[in-house]
């Protein structure tokens, strides 16, 4: 059997398992953990377009989660517009904000870029916390917005049980992974990687590095806003601390760095590893040692950066390939 065949087969297997999981996992708690795992895998994969491929470290992506969440929620609460449409509006708006943030900040390098994105994100969060009304739109400042669970159903992206949410985020995740795979093999992907690794060399090869990064930023913030809408519909209550806080941005970066930036599998692997650690430490130690998961993340990050600076995706891919070779006897293929 040739290697691309067994890659495809194992991918299909994974998707089938994911589709069947809710039949096995009956506990709402575990399903909740899985949904958040997918959500973070989705967020990190969207982030990865900029933070991974373009080689910069944005630490303000919570802003785009917030824009997505607030836009769709306000549109549905005040104007009765379906969150599905609000999701798109939020994404467009988020994209515009992403480009506005990107224009000045992409001129900076390394830590300065990271700090600038934090500054933008925190600035926007503080503004939202202090505004009750933005023109005709009711933001409610720090109290946030509550979505009354009245009209459940697909049209309103609101469900009484967790299974529908599970399938929605699963579809979103598969979609964003496919998109990333497609981009990584496209001209844009090559230009992003080149511009991220050696900007001067890339420019000399005809790459407008700044433009490539802005396109990536627009795409990334667009996709991230979708997650915001999903989050709002899933929890039915949003406030600046829940959808715009730095914690979200940091956790995305943790997952990406540990899983492997710039790879397609990295964010997925990072989320698979870190999210359960976080959730279970919160379940079992939440009362005695709140924040324990952050310490664990820190330790894991240090260890990974020390021994596998490209993230866990690299050794795991190697093991996977070797296992596949043993199983199917693919010969000299890698």
């Amino acid at each position, binding site marked *: 059997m040739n290697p691309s065949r067994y890659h495809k087969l194992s991918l299909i297997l994974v998707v089938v398992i994911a589709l069947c999981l809710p039949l096995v996992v009956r506990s709402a708690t575990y399903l909740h953990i899985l949904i958040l795992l997918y959500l973070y895998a989705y967020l990190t994969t969207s982030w990865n377009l900029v933070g991974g491929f373009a080689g910069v470290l944005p630490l303000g992506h919570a802003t785009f989660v917030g824009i997505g969440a607030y836009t769709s929620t306000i549109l549905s609460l005040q104007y009765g517009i379906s969150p599905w449409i609000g999701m798109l509006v939020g994404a467009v708006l988020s994209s515009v904000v992403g480009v506005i943030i990107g224009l000045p900040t992409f001129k900076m390098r390394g830590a300065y870029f990271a700090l600038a994105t934090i500054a933008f994100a925190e600035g926007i969060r503080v503004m939202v916390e202090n505004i009750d009304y933005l023109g005709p739109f009711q933001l409610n400042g720090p109290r946030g917005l509550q979505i009354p669970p009245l009209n459940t159903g697909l049209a309103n992206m609101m469900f009484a049980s967790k299974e529908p949410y599970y399938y929605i985020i699963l579809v979103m995740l598969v979609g964003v992974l496919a998109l990333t795979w497609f981009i990584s*093999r496209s001209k844009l992907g090559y*230009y992003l*990687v*080149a511009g991220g*690794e050696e900007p*001067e*060399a890339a420019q000399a090869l005809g790459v407008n590095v700044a433009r490539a990064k802005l396109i990536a930023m627009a795409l990334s913030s667009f996709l991230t806003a979708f997650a915001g809408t999903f989050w709002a519909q899933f929890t039915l209550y949003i406030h600046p601390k829940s959808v715009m806080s730095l914690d979200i941005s940091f956790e995305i970066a943790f997952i990406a760095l540990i899983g492997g930036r710039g790879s397609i599998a990295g964010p997925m692997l990072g989320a698979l590893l870190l999210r359960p650690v976080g959730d279970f430490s919160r379940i079992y130690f939440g009362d005695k040692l709140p924040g324990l998961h952050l310490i664990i993340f820190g330790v894991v990050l240090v260890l990974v950066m020390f021994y596998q600076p490209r993230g866990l995706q690299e050794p795991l891919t190697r093991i996977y390939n070797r296992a596949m070779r043993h199983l199917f006897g693919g010969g000299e293929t890698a």
Partner: protein
Amino acid sequence: MKILELKKVRKSFGGIMAVESFSLDVEEGEIVGLIGPNGAGKSTLFNCVAGVFPPTAGEILFRGEKINNQKPWDLCRKGLARTFQIVKPFASRTVLYNVMVGAFITTDKRAEAELRAMEVLRHLHMEDCKDVRAGNLTIADRKRLEIAKALATRPRLLLLDEVMAGLRPTEVDEMVAIIKRLRDAGMTIFVIEHIMRAIMALSDRIAVLHFGTKIAEGSPQEVAHDERVIKAYLGEEYGAA
């Protein structure tokens, strides 16, 4: 036809004059060498031509068009490619990937870019290491990769910045042969080099830069016997030989 014209180009950084009133014409199909001691301003001049920064004064014309303030990526699209003295491979990616970045300049299709990149690699006898990570290459192969990347953009004029530094003598000979082949294929080449044996064998014409000013220009023979060049750069023994 003149492909590149430099007219009284000057470049200063703050109060420091890097290049002063430098004029030179490069004809289509020529190999022109640029030599001079370290710090003479050779790379600065290349950077001005390639659009990294604009000259302080003077004019640079590429195929008759003034390009003083144009950006590197636009110039590359117009047919002006360069290599870097300190090689800049996309280290985490394969050789093929590196070259494909250049090849994407005229196409949006991956298959086409790959085809073109492979052509270039074959031309430089690098097809065997196409799947090697660029960061793992030997210095000679890194230098060749620099050229491969630039060639993938299909340039009319190629600026080579010390592509032979650090190579063994046999590798230098190989590189000279490669560059000559490129010229025979119709490319114009402007080359900075320190290895005199190579630059003498390659160049149709040589310009000598010293403290930012041109002190000589002519055929390799003329330059090698020029009093000022011997004094400033080649050394007395070279003139005697």
